[in-house]
């Protein structure tokens, strides 16, 4: 199914190709859709995409793009297919958008790419009550005019916008069979069960959304009209429900020339952290279906700030940095979990973020308030969740019989955590300066136990986030 490119001038399909589970788009199509130029660098083996003097450099070696000199993460590298170059569809929003002079927004679940100032409200639907009567509530955000046409077996709702963003169909209950996007552009169709009675519609506008309520009564009866702007009952299933944990960033500490702690027998921290991270990634992706990104997947150096930036750019919901510890004496062993300590500097940043909000325009009109926070203190607004995460990690590690030190949870101003704009923790899985642990940490069995403990903590943390929702 192609993506649909929506501009003020109209719609056009943008074909995509699946390669190893990754959705890619041909640069040739990007050229014609966005009027960019593409130049192949045969010496470096990469490709440069240019738009009005601004450029993005892509490489087939790395899942990254250099956007005007700044690195952004992509889910996969540039791929050659015959004479064509293919890039992940995320390149459009992460790589092309920063150099383009119109806004580019990729709504992958909805198969939409929005370019420029187009009005594409999201439409969510709820079906309430087996009835009769059965109520259908359509919410259009940002608000846009709606016209409902009642037919014998369905209600067709037309929304006045450039396009609409509707998720997959939602199942009905009672007198409603289902709700789904219509065959005609900008329409939603509510399909009714055979033999239903009168149908009434009411609209109300509140909190920047247009709410259309459709009340379906039984044959021979009269539908009870729902209050137009009533709050949805607790327990309703939203039409689009974003999972609380979509992406996890795992950071294998050190790498390249920075070997980290060197234990007896030349056991290196950088290798232990990478091995453990790979085990954890595989475990989470295969068993939970959550996307896991690694800040490094081989023996390469990565700057501390780049690790947090990579997690931020990947829109990770959780950041875990893996390390192996060292002490000035050989007598200490066991794992420790760190989260960021808050001193008066960071506390001021947190207070400033709460006080310093700005109003930004949103697609389709209206505005929303956003908090402004220094990028290098992004973690300040996640400290409480990070502390909870650290405690859950400690509990899970103990449950997996991973030895813990006498100071299992600590706070410290750790550089790799400061810029992470999501709940984050750093886990020291044991001491390479301990004669008892140095061999243990390098074994697959120990690393699997650690990975299992983190996996359990992730599950527990997901529940914690869902409770918050």
């Amino acid at each position, binding site marked *: 199914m192609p993506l649909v490119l929506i501009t003020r001038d109209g719609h056009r399909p943008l074909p995509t190709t699946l390669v190893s589970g990754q959705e890619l788009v041909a640069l040739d199509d990007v050229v014609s859709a966005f009027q960019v130029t593409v130049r192949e660098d045969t010496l470096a083996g990469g490709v440069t995409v240019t738009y009005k003097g601004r450029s993005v450099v892509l490489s087939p070696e790395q899942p990254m793009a250099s956007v005007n000199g700044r690195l952004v993460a992509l889910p996969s590298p540039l791929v050659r297919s015959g004479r064509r170059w293919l890039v992940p569809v995320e390149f459009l929003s992460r790589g092309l958008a920063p150099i383009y002079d119109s806004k580019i927004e990729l709504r992958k679940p909805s198969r939409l790419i929005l370019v420029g100032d187009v009005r594409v409200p999201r439409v969510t639907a709820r079906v309430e009550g087996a009835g009769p009567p059965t109520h259908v509530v359509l919410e259009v955000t940002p608000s846009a005019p709606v016209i409902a046409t009642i037919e014998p077996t369905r209600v067709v709702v037309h929304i006045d916008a450039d396009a609409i963003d509707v998720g997959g169909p939602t199942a009905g209950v009672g007198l409603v069979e289902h709700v789904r996007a219509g065959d005609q552009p900008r329409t939603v169709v509510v399909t009714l069960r055979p033999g239903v009675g009168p149908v009434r519609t009411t609209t109300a506008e509140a909190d920047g959304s247009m709410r259309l309520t459709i009340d379906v009564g039984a044959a021979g009866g009269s539908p009870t009209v729902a209050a137009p702007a009533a709050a949805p009952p607790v327990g309703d299933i939203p039409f689009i429900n974003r999972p609380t944990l979509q992406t996890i960033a795992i950071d294998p500490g050190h790498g390249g020339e920075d070997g980290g702690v060197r234990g007896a027998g030349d056991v290196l921290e950088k290798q232990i952290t990478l091995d453990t991270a790979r085990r954890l990634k595989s475990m989470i992706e295969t068993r939970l279906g959550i996307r896991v990104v690694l800040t490094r997947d081989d023996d390469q150096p990565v700057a501390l700030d780049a690790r947090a930036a990579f997690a931020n750019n990947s829109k990770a919901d959780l950041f875990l940095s893996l390390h192996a*510890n*060292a002490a000035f004496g050989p007598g200490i062993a066991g794992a420790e979990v760190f989260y960021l300590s808050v001193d008066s*500097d960071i506390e001021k940043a947190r207070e400033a973020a709460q006080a310093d909000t700005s109003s930004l325009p949103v697609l389709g009109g209206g505005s929303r308030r956003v908090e402004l926070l220094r990028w290098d203190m992004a973690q300040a607004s996640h400290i409480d969740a990070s502390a909870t995460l650290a405690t859950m990690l400690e509990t899970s590690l103990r449950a997996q019989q991973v030895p813990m030190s006498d100071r299992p949870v600590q706070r410290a*101003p750790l550089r790799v955590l400061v810029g992470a704009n999501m709940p984050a923790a750093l886990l020291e899985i044991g001491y390479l300066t301990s004669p008892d642990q140095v061999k243990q940490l390098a074994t697959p069995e120990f690393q699997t136990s650690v990975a299992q403990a983190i996996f359990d903590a992730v599950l527990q943390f997901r529940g914690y986030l869902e409770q918050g929702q």
Partner: protein
Amino acid sequence: MTRRWLKLGAVAGSVIALAFALTLGLERVMAPRTETDTQATTPPEDATVPHISATLFLATAEGDALVPVRMDVPLASSVAEQGREIIAAQLTAAQLPFVTPIPPGASLRAFYVTERGEGFIDLSAEAATAHPGGSTAEVLTVYSLVNAVTANLPSVTRVQLLIDGKEVDTLAGHVDLRRTLEKNDEIVQALPSP
């Protein structure tokens, strides 16, 4: 006449030195004596030089926390000079059964204080290159120095570590050194009172 003036000058100097020592040491005189109260392994070269009793920080034998220890440090004529004496003592301090949290070979290049009460400790490259790594060891190294300065110089409330005169990200990949740090009591293990 000249001899009389010399005597008067010596007396005045002693009074000023005594007053300065009292000012610096007041907090420590008033503070509860939970630290071990012993002398440094390298006693002062000249016993006639005035000293203050400073609180320095070593690591426990296991290396998982800091412990405060009392040691004599030469009295100096200014806050910055006194800071240099304290840091120099912190870098070389040793006392069994504790271990030093300072990487071998690390030395003090400079110490200065701003009017805002920020202290800057400029260390030699060995503080980073000879560091064993690990979050725990790095936390102890950094806060042994930050705490030594803030505990003994009440006018200094925040401290930043520099290496070879330059700001650095970290010593060994963990503790953020881009900004000044406050004292950290969470990692200090109080010793039982004697």
